[in-house]
Protein backbone atom coordinates (compact mmCIF):
# COMPACT_ATOMS: atom_id res chain seq x y z
CA UNK A 1 0.00 0.00 0.00
CA UNK A 2 2.84 2.34 0.89
CA UNK A 3 4.52 1.48 -2.41
CA UNK A 4 1.26 2.13 -4.22
CA UNK A 5 0.91 5.63 -2.76
CA UNK A 6 4.53 6.40 -3.58
CA UNK A 7 4.14 5.23 -7.17
CA UNK A 8 0.71 6.72 -7.80
CA UNK A 9 1.74 10.28 -8.84
CA UNK A 10 4.36 9.01 -11.30
CA UNK A 11 2.00 6.44 -12.77
CA UNK A 12 -0.91 8.87 -13.10
CA UNK A 13 1.42 11.36 -14.79
CA UNK A 14 2.54 8.78 -17.35
CA UNK A 15 -0.99 7.46 -17.88
CA UNK A 16 -2.26 11.00 -18.47
CA UNK A 17 0.27 11.46 -21.25
CA UNK A 18 -0.88 8.16 -22.77
CA UNK A 19 -4.53 9.06 -22.37
CA UNK A 20 -4.03 12.33 -24.25
CA UNK A 21 -2.81 10.25 -27.19
CA UNK A 22 -5.89 8.03 -26.82
CA UNK A 23 -8.17 11.10 -26.81
CA UNK A 24 -6.38 12.66 -29.78
CA UNK A 25 -6.86 9.50 -31.81
CA UNK A 26 -10.49 9.25 -30.67
CA UNK A 27 -11.46 12.81 -31.67
CA UNK A 28 -9.52 12.81 -34.94
CA UNK A 29 -11.20 9.54 -35.90
CA UNK A 30 -14.64 11.04 -35.19
CA UNK A 31 -13.88 14.27 -37.07
CA UNK A 32 -12.64 12.31 -40.07
CA UNK A 33 -15.09 9.42 -40.04
CA UNK A 34 -18.35 11.39 -39.65
CA UNK A 35 -18.15 13.11 -43.07
CA UNK A 36 -16.29 10.28 -44.80
CA UNK A 37 -18.93 7.82 -43.63
CA UNK A 38 -21.64 9.98 -45.19
CA UNK A 39 -19.76 10.09 -48.49
CA UNK A 40 -19.37 6.31 -48.45
CA UNK A 41 -23.07 5.94 -47.62
CA UNK A 42 -23.98 8.06 -50.68
CA UNK A 43 -21.57 5.96 -52.73
CA UNK A 44 -23.16 2.69 -51.75
CA UNK A 45 -26.67 4.08 -52.40
CA UNK A 46 -25.66 5.56 -55.76
CA UNK A 47 -27.71 4.61 -58.80
CA UNK A 48 -24.47 4.57 -60.78
CA UNK A 49 -23.73 0.86 -60.46
CA UNK A 50 -19.90 0.77 -60.73
CA UNK A 51 -19.65 3.37 -57.95
CA UNK A 52 -21.97 1.51 -55.64
CA UNK A 53 -20.20 -1.80 -56.34
CA UNK A 54 -16.83 -0.20 -55.64
CA UNK A 55 -17.91 1.34 -52.36
CA UNK A 56 -19.59 -1.89 -51.30
CA UNK A 57 -16.37 -3.74 -52.09
CA UNK A 58 -14.38 -1.33 -49.93
CA UNK A 59 -16.88 -1.58 -47.09
CA UNK A 60 -16.76 -5.37 -47.35
CA UNK A 61 -12.94 -5.44 -47.19
CA UNK A 62 -12.70 -2.94 -44.34
CA UNK A 63 -15.46 -4.47 -42.24
CA UNK A 64 -14.39 -7.99 -43.07
CA UNK A 65 -10.81 -7.75 -41.79
CA UNK A 66 -9.56 -7.05 -38.27
CA UNK A 67 -8.60 -3.45 -37.50
CA UNK A 68 -5.32 -4.74 -36.10
CA UNK A 69 -4.33 -6.16 -39.49
CA UNK A 70 -5.41 -2.93 -41.19
CA UNK A 71 -3.14 -0.95 -38.87
CA UNK A 72 -0.21 -3.24 -39.67
CA UNK A 73 -0.90 -3.05 -43.42
CA UNK A 74 -1.33 0.72 -43.54
CA UNK A 75 1.77 1.34 -41.46
CA UNK A 76 4.15 -1.26 -42.89
CA UNK A 77 2.94 -1.79 -46.48
CA UNK A 78 4.52 1.39 -47.94
CA UNK A 79 7.95 0.56 -46.55
CA UNK A 80 7.92 -3.22 -46.92
CA UNK A 81 6.42 -3.54 -50.39
CA UNK A 82 6.75 -0.14 -52.07
CA UNK A 83 10.17 0.55 -50.49
CA UNK A 84 9.03 4.02 -49.61
CA UNK A 85 8.38 4.40 -45.88
CA UNK A 86 6.01 7.36 -46.22
CA UNK A 87 5.09 7.42 -42.53
CA UNK A 88 8.63 7.49 -41.18
CA UNK A 89 9.64 5.97 -37.88
CA UNK A 90 8.79 8.84 -35.55
CA UNK A 91 5.82 9.32 -33.30
CA UNK A 92 3.99 11.66 -35.71
CA UNK A 93 4.15 9.12 -38.52
CA UNK A 94 2.75 6.39 -36.32
CA UNK A 95 -0.04 8.66 -35.20
CA UNK A 96 -0.90 9.63 -38.79
CA UNK A 97 -0.95 6.00 -39.91
CA UNK A 98 -3.16 5.08 -36.97
CA UNK A 99 -5.52 7.99 -37.73
CA UNK A 100 -5.86 6.97 -41.36
CA UNK A 101 -6.61 3.36 -40.40
CA UNK A 102 -9.17 4.33 -37.77
CA UNK A 103 -10.91 6.92 -39.95
CA UNK A 104 -11.23 4.48 -42.84
CA UNK A 105 -12.40 1.65 -40.60
CA UNK A 106 -14.95 3.67 -38.67
CA UNK A 107 -16.19 5.54 -41.75
CA UNK A 108 -17.22 2.18 -43.21
CA UNK A 109 -19.17 1.22 -40.09
CA UNK A 110 -20.72 4.71 -39.90
CA UNK A 111 -21.70 4.54 -43.59
CA UNK A 112 -23.89 1.53 -42.94
CA UNK A 113 -25.52 3.29 -39.99
CA UNK A 114 -26.14 6.38 -42.14
CA UNK A 115 -27.58 4.21 -44.90
CA UNK A 116 -29.93 2.52 -42.46
CA UNK A 117 -30.95 5.94 -41.12
CA UNK A 118 -31.58 7.46 -44.54
CA UNK A 119 -33.43 4.46 -45.93
CA UNK A 120 -35.44 4.20 -42.74
CA UNK A 121 -37.15 7.52 -43.38
CA UNK A 122 -40.53 6.61 -44.94
CA UNK A 123 -40.72 7.22 -48.70
CA UNK A 124 -43.99 9.09 -48.13
CA UNK A 125 -42.07 12.00 -46.62
CA UNK A 126 -40.00 12.40 -49.75
CA UNK A 127 -43.16 12.21 -51.89
CA UNK A 128 -44.82 14.81 -49.70
CA UNK A 129 -41.83 17.07 -50.20
CA UNK A 130 -42.05 16.66 -53.96
CA UNK A 131 -45.76 17.48 -53.91
CA UNK A 132 -44.98 20.62 -51.94
CA UNK A 133 -42.57 21.61 -54.69
CA UNK A 134 -39.33 21.20 -52.75
CA UNK A 135 -36.16 20.41 -54.67
CA UNK A 136 -34.32 17.13 -54.02
CA UNK A 137 -31.61 19.04 -52.18
CA UNK A 138 -34.16 20.73 -49.93
CA UNK A 139 -35.87 17.43 -49.24
CA UNK A 140 -32.59 15.80 -48.28
CA UNK A 141 -31.37 18.53 -45.95
CA UNK A 142 -34.68 19.69 -44.46
CA UNK A 143 -36.57 16.40 -44.24
CA UNK A 144 -34.43 13.27 -44.56
CA UNK A 145 -31.15 14.35 -42.92
CA UNK A 146 -32.82 15.73 -39.79
CA UNK A 147 -34.77 12.56 -39.18
CA UNK A 148 -31.77 10.43 -40.05
CA UNK A 149 -29.72 12.15 -37.35
CA UNK A 150 -32.37 11.35 -34.79
CA UNK A 151 -32.56 7.72 -35.84
CA UNK A 152 -28.85 7.05 -35.89
CA UNK A 153 -28.00 8.37 -32.43
CA UNK A 154 -28.41 5.05 -30.56
CA UNK A 155 -26.39 2.90 -33.00
CA UNK A 156 -23.80 5.69 -33.32
CA UNK A 157 -23.45 5.85 -29.53
CA UNK A 158 -22.60 2.17 -29.62
CA UNK A 159 -19.86 2.65 -32.20
CA UNK A 160 -18.47 5.73 -30.47
CA UNK A 161 -18.10 3.90 -27.18
CA UNK A 162 -16.48 0.96 -28.97
CA UNK A 163 -14.10 3.41 -30.63
CA UNK A 164 -12.84 4.66 -27.27
CA UNK A 165 -11.73 1.15 -26.42
CA UNK A 166 -10.57 0.23 -29.94
CA UNK A 167 -7.95 3.01 -29.84
CA UNK A 168 -5.90 0.61 -27.71
CA UNK A 169 -5.29 -1.48 -30.85
CA UNK A 170 -2.97 1.25 -32.13
CA UNK A 171 -0.32 -0.02 -29.76
CA UNK A 172 0.45 -2.71 -32.36
CA UNK A 173 2.27 -0.04 -34.40
CA UNK A 174 3.78 1.32 -31.19
CA UNK A 175 1.52 4.33 -30.81
CA UNK A 176 1.99 5.14 -27.18
CA UNK A 177 -1.57 5.35 -25.95
CA UNK A 178 -2.70 4.63 -22.41
CA UNK A 179 -2.47 0.82 -22.46
CA UNK A 180 1.07 1.12 -23.76
CA UNK A 181 1.87 3.56 -20.96
CA UNK A 182 0.35 1.22 -18.38
CA UNK A 183 2.11 -1.84 -19.72
CA UNK A 184 5.47 -0.05 -19.75
CA UNK A 185 5.53 -0.22 -15.95
CA UNK A 186 5.55 -4.02 -16.10
CA UNK A 187 9.02 -3.95 -17.61
CA UNK A 188 10.24 -0.70 -16.16
CA UNK A 189 9.53 2.92 -16.95
CA UNK A 190 9.96 6.21 -15.12
CA UNK A 191 12.06 4.40 -12.51
CA UNK A 192 9.30 1.94 -11.58
CA UNK A 193 9.77 -1.62 -12.71
CA UNK A 194 7.72 -4.72 -12.28
CA UNK A 195 4.48 -2.92 -11.38
CA UNK A 196 1.37 -4.69 -12.65
CA UNK A 197 -1.34 -2.46 -11.26
CA UNK A 198 -0.92 0.51 -13.67
CA UNK A 199 -2.12 -1.68 -16.54
CA UNK A 200 -5.35 -2.51 -14.72
CA UNK A 201 -5.61 1.08 -13.51
CA UNK A 202 -6.03 2.24 -17.14
CA UNK A 203 -9.51 0.68 -17.08
CA UNK A 204 -10.64 3.50 -14.76
CA UNK A 205 -9.75 6.10 -17.39
CA UNK A 206 -11.83 4.29 -20.02
CA UNK A 207 -14.69 3.79 -17.62
CA UNK A 208 -14.87 7.47 -16.60
CA UNK A 209 -14.54 8.75 -20.15
CA UNK A 210 -17.17 6.36 -21.43
CA UNK A 211 -19.42 7.35 -18.55
CA UNK A 212 -19.21 11.00 -19.59
CA UNK A 213 -19.84 10.06 -23.23
CA UNK A 214 -22.87 7.96 -22.31
CA UNK A 215 -24.38 10.90 -20.40
CA UNK A 216 -23.75 13.33 -23.27
CA UNK A 217 -25.10 11.00 -25.92
CA UNK A 218 -28.16 10.24 -23.79
CA UNK A 219 -28.82 13.96 -23.46
CA UNK A 220 -28.44 14.38 -27.24
CA UNK A 221 -30.93 11.59 -27.80
CA UNK A 222 -33.52 13.28 -25.56
CA UNK A 223 -32.93 16.62 -27.27
CA UNK A 224 -33.67 15.06 -30.64
CA UNK A 225 -36.89 13.53 -29.37
CA UNK A 226 -39.10 16.27 -30.87
CA UNK A 227 -40.13 14.20 -33.89
CA UNK A 228 -42.47 11.95 -31.96
Amino acid sequence: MELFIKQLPTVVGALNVGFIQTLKLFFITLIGAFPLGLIIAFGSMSRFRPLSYLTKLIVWIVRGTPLMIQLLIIYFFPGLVLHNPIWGGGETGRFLAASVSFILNYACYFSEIYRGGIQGVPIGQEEAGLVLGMTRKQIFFKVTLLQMIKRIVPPMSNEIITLVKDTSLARIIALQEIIWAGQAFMKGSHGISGAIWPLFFTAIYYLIFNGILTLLLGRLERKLDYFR
Partner: protein
Amino acid sequence: MKKLFALMLSCAMVLSLAACGGKDSDSDMEYVKDKGVLTVGITDFEPMDYKDDNDEWIGFDADMAKAFAESLGVDVEFVEIDWDNKVMELDGKTIDCVWNGMTLTDEVTSSMECSNAYCNNAQVVIVPADKADEYQDKDSLKDLSFAAEAGSAGEAELEALDLKCTPVKDQATALMEVAAGTSDAAVIDSLMAAAMVGEGTGYEDLTYTIGLNSEEYGVGFRKDSDLAEALNKFFADSYKDGTMKECAEKYKVQAALIEQ
Protein backbone atom coordinates in the same frame (compact mmCIF):
# COMPACT_ATOMS: atom_id res chain seq x y z
CA MET B 1 -21.57 -9.98 -60.75
CA LYS B 2 -19.35 -9.66 -63.82
CA LYS B 3 -18.76 -6.00 -63.08
CA LEU B 4 -17.83 -6.80 -59.50
CA PHE B 5 -15.34 -9.37 -60.73
CA ALA B 6 -13.85 -6.87 -63.19
CA LEU B 7 -13.52 -4.33 -60.43
CA MET B 8 -11.75 -6.76 -58.15
CA LEU B 9 -9.36 -7.67 -60.95
CA SER B 10 -8.55 -4.06 -61.70
CA CYS B 11 -7.94 -3.39 -58.03
CA ALA B 12 -5.55 -6.33 -57.89
CA MET B 13 -3.73 -4.99 -60.96
CA VAL B 14 -3.34 -1.51 -59.49
CA LEU B 15 -1.92 -3.01 -56.32
CA SER B 16 0.54 -5.23 -58.14
CA LEU B 17 1.66 -2.32 -60.33
CA ALA B 18 2.24 -0.22 -57.26
CA ALA B 19 4.34 -3.00 -55.83
CA CYS B 20 6.83 -2.62 -58.70
CA GLY B 21 7.74 0.94 -57.79
CA GLY B 22 10.69 2.01 -55.68
CA LYS B 23 14.24 0.77 -55.62
CA ASP B 24 16.64 0.04 -52.79
CA SER B 25 19.80 2.07 -52.71
CA ASP B 26 22.88 -0.17 -52.70
CA SER B 27 24.42 0.80 -49.41
CA ASP B 28 22.48 1.07 -46.18
CA MET B 29 25.15 3.37 -44.79
CA GLU B 30 24.66 5.78 -47.71
CA TYR B 31 20.90 5.64 -47.12
CA VAL B 32 21.30 6.61 -43.47
CA LYS B 33 23.86 9.33 -44.27
CA ASP B 34 21.59 10.81 -46.97
CA LYS B 35 18.76 10.81 -44.50
CA GLY B 36 21.03 12.43 -41.88
CA VAL B 37 19.57 10.49 -38.98
CA LEU B 38 20.03 7.00 -37.54
CA THR B 39 16.65 5.78 -36.31
CA VAL B 40 17.15 3.34 -33.44
CA GLY B 41 14.32 0.97 -32.50
CA ILE B 42 14.15 0.40 -28.75
CA THR B 43 11.86 -0.56 -25.91
CA ASP B 44 11.89 1.01 -22.45
CA PHE B 45 14.38 -1.40 -20.83
CA GLU B 46 16.55 -0.39 -17.90
CA PRO B 47 19.60 -0.30 -17.85
CA MET B 48 19.96 -0.51 -21.65
CA ASP B 49 17.49 2.13 -22.92
CA TYR B 50 15.38 4.24 -20.59
CA LYS B 51 14.36 7.84 -20.01
CA ASP B 52 16.00 10.15 -17.51
CA ASP B 53 14.16 12.91 -15.66
CA ASN B 54 14.44 15.26 -18.64
CA ASP B 55 12.75 12.73 -20.95
CA GLU B 56 16.10 12.02 -22.66
CA TRP B 57 16.87 8.44 -23.66
CA ILE B 58 19.84 7.16 -21.70
CA GLY B 59 21.27 3.75 -20.82
CA PHE B 60 24.21 1.67 -21.97
CA ASP B 61 22.70 0.95 -25.39
CA ALA B 62 21.32 4.46 -25.85
CA ASP B 63 24.66 6.12 -25.04
CA MET B 64 26.56 3.76 -27.35
CA ALA B 65 24.03 4.40 -30.12
CA LYS B 66 24.49 8.16 -29.73
CA ALA B 67 28.27 7.74 -29.98
CA PHE B 68 27.95 5.48 -33.04
CA ALA B 69 25.68 7.95 -34.83
CA GLU B 70 28.15 10.71 -34.05
CA SER B 71 30.95 8.64 -35.61
CA LEU B 72 28.82 8.33 -38.76
CA GLY B 73 28.19 12.07 -38.71
CA VAL B 74 24.41 11.74 -38.41
CA ASP B 75 21.82 12.57 -35.77
CA VAL B 76 20.23 9.87 -33.68
CA GLU B 77 16.51 9.32 -33.15
CA PHE B 78 15.11 6.80 -30.67
CA VAL B 79 11.76 5.22 -31.44
CA GLU B 80 9.87 2.87 -29.16
CA ILE B 81 8.66 -0.14 -31.10
CA ASP B 82 6.52 -3.18 -30.48
CA TRP B 83 9.17 -5.88 -29.94
CA ASP B 84 7.16 -8.47 -31.89
CA ASN B 85 7.36 -6.30 -35.01
CA LYS B 86 11.07 -5.52 -34.94
CA VAL B 87 11.92 -7.27 -38.21
CA MET B 88 8.99 -5.62 -39.97
CA GLU B 89 10.05 -2.21 -38.65
CA LEU B 90 13.57 -2.79 -39.99
CA ASP B 91 12.54 -4.07 -43.42
CA GLY B 92 9.88 -1.38 -43.73
CA LYS B 93 12.63 1.19 -43.04
CA THR B 94 10.69 2.81 -40.22
CA ILE B 95 13.81 2.14 -38.13
CA ASP B 96 17.46 1.53 -39.10
CA CYS B 97 18.56 -0.76 -36.29
CA VAL B 98 17.35 -2.65 -33.23
CA TRP B 99 19.61 -1.75 -30.32
CA ASN B 100 18.01 -2.82 -27.10
CA GLY B 101 19.72 -5.69 -25.31
CA MET B 102 18.67 -8.06 -28.08
CA THR B 103 19.61 -11.70 -27.53
CA LEU B 104 21.29 -13.20 -30.58
CA THR B 105 18.98 -16.14 -31.22
CA ASP B 106 18.70 -18.09 -34.48
CA GLU B 107 15.53 -16.19 -35.26
CA VAL B 108 17.33 -12.86 -34.89
CA THR B 109 20.52 -13.78 -36.77
CA SER B 110 18.61 -15.27 -39.69
CA SER B 111 16.35 -12.25 -40.19
CA MET B 112 18.79 -9.41 -39.44
CA GLU B 113 22.39 -8.44 -40.11
CA CYS B 114 23.81 -8.58 -36.60
CA SER B 115 26.83 -6.94 -35.03
CA ASN B 116 29.30 -8.85 -32.88
CA ALA B 117 28.06 -9.73 -29.40
CA TYR B 118 28.85 -7.01 -26.88
CA CYS B 119 27.22 -8.16 -23.64
CA ASN B 120 26.69 -11.47 -21.80
CA ASN B 121 23.38 -12.44 -20.33
CA ALA B 122 21.69 -15.55 -18.93
CA GLN B 123 18.19 -16.97 -18.72
CA VAL B 124 17.15 -17.41 -15.10
CA VAL B 125 14.28 -19.19 -13.35
CA ILE B 126 11.81 -17.02 -11.40
CA VAL B 127 9.87 -18.61 -8.52
CA PRO B 128 7.96 -17.33 -5.49
CA ALA B 129 10.53 -16.33 -2.86
CA ASP B 130 9.16 -18.65 -0.17
CA LYS B 131 9.71 -21.70 -2.41
CA ALA B 132 13.11 -20.65 -3.75
CA ASP B 133 15.01 -23.16 -1.58
CA GLU B 134 13.34 -26.12 -3.24
CA TYR B 135 14.39 -25.16 -6.74
CA GLN B 136 18.12 -24.75 -6.81
CA ASP B 137 19.02 -27.31 -9.48
CA LYS B 138 17.66 -28.39 -12.84
CA ASP B 139 16.24 -31.71 -11.59
CA SER B 140 13.91 -29.99 -9.14
CA LEU B 141 12.21 -28.11 -11.99
CA LYS B 142 10.66 -31.02 -13.80
CA ASP B 143 7.19 -30.90 -12.20
CA LEU B 144 6.74 -27.15 -12.54
CA SER B 145 4.67 -25.38 -15.16
CA PHE B 146 6.57 -22.52 -16.76
CA ALA B 147 5.74 -19.30 -18.52
CA ALA B 148 8.21 -17.73 -20.95
CA GLU B 149 8.13 -15.12 -23.68
CA ALA B 150 7.06 -16.62 -27.01
CA GLY B 151 10.06 -17.00 -29.30
CA SER B 152 12.53 -16.07 -26.57
CA ALA B 153 15.75 -17.80 -25.64
CA GLY B 154 14.07 -18.85 -22.39
CA GLU B 155 11.34 -20.74 -24.23
CA ALA B 156 13.91 -22.52 -26.39
CA GLU B 157 15.84 -23.52 -23.29
CA LEU B 158 12.71 -24.94 -21.61
CA GLU B 159 11.89 -26.92 -24.73
CA ALA B 160 15.40 -28.34 -24.80
CA LEU B 161 14.97 -29.48 -21.18
CA ASP B 162 11.55 -30.94 -22.05
CA LEU B 163 9.71 -28.87 -19.43
CA LYS B 164 6.08 -27.75 -19.53
CA CYS B 165 5.98 -24.24 -20.95
CA THR B 166 3.22 -21.75 -21.74
CA PRO B 167 4.41 -19.16 -24.28
CA VAL B 168 3.20 -15.67 -23.33
CA LYS B 169 3.39 -12.26 -24.96
CA ASP B 170 6.47 -10.85 -23.25
CA GLN B 171 8.77 -11.30 -20.27
CA ALA B 172 6.70 -9.01 -18.08
CA THR B 173 3.62 -11.15 -18.73
CA ALA B 174 5.61 -14.24 -17.79
CA LEU B 175 6.34 -12.61 -14.43
CA MET B 176 2.69 -11.71 -13.98
CA GLU B 177 1.78 -15.37 -14.55
CA VAL B 178 3.95 -16.39 -11.59
CA ALA B 179 2.69 -13.56 -9.40
CA ALA B 180 -0.90 -14.52 -10.18
CA GLY B 181 -0.18 -18.21 -9.59
CA THR B 182 -1.29 -19.25 -13.09
CA SER B 183 2.21 -20.62 -13.69
CA ASP B 184 4.59 -22.07 -11.11
CA ALA B 185 7.69 -20.43 -12.51
CA ALA B 186 8.94 -18.22 -15.33
CA VAL B 187 12.13 -17.93 -17.32
CA ILE B 188 13.38 -14.43 -18.18
CA ASP B 189 16.80 -12.92 -18.75
CA SER B 190 19.00 -12.04 -15.83
CA LEU B 191 19.48 -8.32 -16.54
CA MET B 192 15.74 -7.92 -16.51
CA ALA B 193 15.29 -10.17 -13.49
CA ALA B 194 17.74 -8.07 -11.52
CA ALA B 195 15.70 -4.96 -12.26
CA MET B 196 12.22 -6.39 -11.86
CA VAL B 197 11.96 -8.80 -8.94
CA GLY B 198 12.75 -8.54 -5.26
CA GLU B 199 12.75 -5.60 -2.82
CA GLY B 200 11.28 -2.34 -4.00
CA THR B 201 9.65 -3.71 -7.16
CA GLY B 202 6.09 -4.78 -7.83
CA TYR B 203 7.19 -8.41 -7.43
CA GLU B 204 8.56 -8.46 -3.90
CA ASP B 205 7.39 -12.05 -3.39
CA LEU B 206 9.36 -13.40 -6.34
CA THR B 207 13.01 -14.22 -6.67
CA TYR B 208 15.34 -15.79 -9.22
CA THR B 209 17.24 -18.99 -8.69
CA ILE B 210 19.35 -20.91 -11.20
CA GLY B 211 20.55 -19.82 -14.64
CA LEU B 212 19.64 -22.11 -17.53
CA ASN B 213 22.06 -20.99 -20.20
CA SER B 214 24.19 -18.07 -21.16
CA GLU B 215 23.53 -15.89 -24.13
CA GLU B 216 24.80 -12.76 -25.81
CA TYR B 217 23.42 -9.39 -26.82
CA GLY B 218 23.94 -7.86 -30.26
CA VAL B 219 22.65 -5.04 -32.44
CA GLY B 220 20.45 -5.87 -35.43
CA PHE B 221 20.45 -4.12 -38.81
CA ARG B 222 18.61 -4.75 -42.08
CA LYS B 223 19.71 -7.93 -43.88
CA ASP B 224 22.95 -7.33 -45.83
CA SER B 225 23.41 -3.87 -44.33
CA ASP B 226 26.97 -2.55 -44.30
CA LEU B 227 26.22 -0.75 -41.02
CA ALA B 228 26.82 -3.94 -39.01
CA GLU B 229 30.43 -4.03 -40.19
CA ALA B 230 30.83 -0.33 -39.37
CA LEU B 231 29.47 -0.92 -35.88
CA ASN B 232 31.86 -3.83 -35.28
CA LYS B 233 34.72 -1.51 -36.10
CA PHE B 234 33.26 1.19 -33.86
CA PHE B 235 32.89 -1.32 -31.00
CA ALA B 236 36.50 -2.46 -31.43
CA ASP B 237 37.79 1.13 -31.40
CA SER B 238 35.78 2.23 -28.41
CA TYR B 239 36.69 -0.94 -26.50
CA LYS B 240 40.37 -0.24 -27.15
CA ASP B 241 40.26 3.38 -26.02
CA GLY B 242 38.21 2.48 -22.94
CA THR B 243 35.10 4.57 -23.70
CA MET B 244 32.91 1.48 -24.01
CA LYS B 245 34.01 0.23 -20.60
CA GLU B 246 33.48 3.66 -19.10
CA CYS B 247 29.96 3.74 -20.48
CA ALA B 248 29.26 0.22 -19.17
CA GLU B 249 30.45 1.20 -15.70
CA LYS B 250 28.10 4.18 -15.72
CA TYR B 251 25.16 1.78 -16.05
CA LYS B 252 26.70 -1.05 -13.95
CA VAL B 253 26.84 -3.62 -16.73
CA GLN B 254 30.65 -3.76 -16.95
CA ALA B 255 30.72 -7.35 -15.62
CA ALA B 256 28.74 -8.52 -18.62
CA LEU B 257 30.76 -6.65 -21.25
CA ILE B 258 32.40 -8.78 -23.96
CA GLU B 259 35.88 -7.99 -25.23
CA GLN B 260 35.83 -6.66 -28.78
